[in-house]
């Protein structure tokens, strides 16, 4: 029966070609949309993890309560020992020290007095260790515009835009004015080794990247850091694994009665990210749901049109004595075949485009020029397991549903009127 119907569809292109094309196009779009939205959300999460939150983040309890103010006076102490313990406890994870700091960056004139000055938003990371992955993690290689990477603790990278504002370039001296961990004033000279472009407007306005040892010295933070970021041994964030580490660490190391005891927070629990994860869960679901619904209506319509176009054919089949139920069932089987074939090709095409978007990505840097949010400027698609079957929902069910609805008309047709209809 299936073979018979399949042959019919192949030989009579008038009744199969258009429905298959529409189903293929709709399914391809559904798969592509799903992969692209999933990719955007994944990229944003990973970008946040790499730049600010890690998959897990360790701070003191007091720092965590005021983390928006970046209170380095409440930083973690005895960091070397803590990281050594962490590496023993979670050998597959990687832990890195970070210090975020703010202040003024001042460029001197020939007399050593202020030439230009600007508010700086700095991040200290491990740039000088031989085995550091921070340069790769923060994509600094690709971001370097002029000069080179720091080779000494008193060398820094500043954003290209900020360097132009301060009228400095590689080899020039700048002075950082900020507060030490103990609140004292810190005025420290650094040499600009290179300039970078973060691709994020917020960072490009006033960003500075320094080696952690140079900033620890400037901020009087010996063996101290604001945050320790932990990265799981997987390319993408895994909330279940992060939650396990978080619970385990807090049970072992955190003391609710001591405001300076360390506390771990996983990415999903970070203040802004909690809302983002909810947004991802609901928004992606809604967008994909709406798209599937829209495609279902289009494909349902295809099913209806298919049914109506074959009004005459069904009349003849009824006239020669074919059972109404048999005609109805055969139409549904045909719809299933069209849905399956269209969904298969649609999924293939959708996955093909998604793969291309996964590799090449779309650069939205120009659209982000006035953005204050830390977001990646290139968004890529992400092919997930649901992408392989998601397209079959609108592709198969809508065509079948459309055919089922239009086919009801078969039962309303009266044999007495058939010949009249056929004569006209």
């Amino acid at each position, binding site marked *: 029966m299936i073979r018979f119907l399949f042959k019919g569809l192949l030989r009579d292109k008038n009744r199969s070609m258009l429905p298959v094309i529409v189903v293929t196009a709709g399914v391809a779009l559904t798969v592509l949309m799903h992969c692209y939205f999933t990719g955007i959300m994944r990229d944003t999460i990973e970008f946040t993890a790499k730049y600010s939150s890690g998959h897990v983040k360790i701070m003191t309890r007091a720092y965590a309560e005021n983390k928006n103010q970046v209170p380095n006076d*409440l930083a973690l102490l005895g960091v070397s020992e803590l990281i050594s313990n962490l590496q023993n406890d979670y050998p597959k994870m990687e832990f890195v020290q970070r210090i975020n700091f703010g202040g003024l960056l001042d460029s001197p004139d020939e007399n050593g*007095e202020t030439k230009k000055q600007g508010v700086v938003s700095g991040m200290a990371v491990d740039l000088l260790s031989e085995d550091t992955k921070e340069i790769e993690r923060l994509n600094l290689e690709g971001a370097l515009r002029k000069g080179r990477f720091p080779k000494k603790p008193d060398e820094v990278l500043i954003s290209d835009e900020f360097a132009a504002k301060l009228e400095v370039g590689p080899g020039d001296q700048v002075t950082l004015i900020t507060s030490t961990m103990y609140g*004292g*004033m810190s*005025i420290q000279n650094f040499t600009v080794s290179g300039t970078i472009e973060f691709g994020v407007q917020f960072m490009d306005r006033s960003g500075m990247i320094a080696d952690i040892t140079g900033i620890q010295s400037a901020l009087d933070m010996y063996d101290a850091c604001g945050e320790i970021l932990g990265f799981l041994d997987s390319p993408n964030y895994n909330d279940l694994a992060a939650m396990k580490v978080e619970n385990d660490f807090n049970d072992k190391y955190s003391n609710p009665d001591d405001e300076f005891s360390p506390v771990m927070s996983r990415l999903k629990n970070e203040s802004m990210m909690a809302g983002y994860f909810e947004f991802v869960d609901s928004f992606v679901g809604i967008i994909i749901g709406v798209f599937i619904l829209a495609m279902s209506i289009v494909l349902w319509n295809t099913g209806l049109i298919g049914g109506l176009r074959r009004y005459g054919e069904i009349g003849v089949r009824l006239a020669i004595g074919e059972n109404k139920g048999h005609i109805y069932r055969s139409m549904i089987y045909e719809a299933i075949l069209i849905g399956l074939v269209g969904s298969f090709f649609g999924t293939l095409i959708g996955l093909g485009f998604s793969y291309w978007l996964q590799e090449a990505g779309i650069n939205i840097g120009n659209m982000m020029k006035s953005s204050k949010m830390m977001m990646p400027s290139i968004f890529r698609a992400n092919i997930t397991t649901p992408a392989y079957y998601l397209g079959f929902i609108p592709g198969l069910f809508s065509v079948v549903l459309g055919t089922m609805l239009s086919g009801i008309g078969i039962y309303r047709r009266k044999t007495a009127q058939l010949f009249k209809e056929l004569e006209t």
Partner: protein
Amino acid sequence: MKRLVIILFLIPTIVRAEEPTGKEILERIDKNLAAKSTITTSKMIIHGARQTRTIEAKTWGIGDEKAFTEYLAPAREKGTKMLKLEDKLWIYSPGSDRTIQISGHMLRQSLMGSDLSYEDMMDNAKMLENYDAGVIGSEVIQGRDCWIVELQAKTAQVNYQIRKLWVDKDRFIPLKEELYAKSGKLLKRMELFDIIKIDSRWYPKKIVFKDMLKTGDGTEFIIDDIEFDQQIPEYIFTKASLKK
């Protein structure tokens, strides 16, 4: 009886006549504290969230407009100098050998990690020019009878929109001051202790500042030595003297 009734009616008028106005109290405070010049050796004990630090400094000042401070201890701050000329502030750091002008949002930062900001240090505006003063009551502070004077800002350009002072009724020196935001939120508290008479002035030996938005137990400012109306060479108040 008729006389008694008249006297009873007059008593509040007499008492009111003796009560100075807010403006008069501020003028008396200025008269007591203001000096042509001061040379002060002081200690700032900063009780931070984690540790207590002591910073020693010597300050030369002329009126409220000019001040030059040299930090003497601890080692990390030693040699740091600050010059204030009216509403401008420069800092010299020997480590970086740079003279830097502090401006903009940096003025709101804590002064050496204390409960005072650079802006507080720069505050040389005459209170009567910027605030409407009124006496709102009396209270005993440190065993002394005090007027409570409330100052409401006339302009939005001041650091604190509302200030409350508890002023010693006999010595005309504030024993406590509270600084509020426009919303009424208490931002800072200042208490003055160990009031001694130096020449003709009543002066505090110790002032305790508390930034209510900051962790820690406040900052003690202890005056070890103060000299009034001394001759101070004008070259001290120049940027060149910062590097000397």
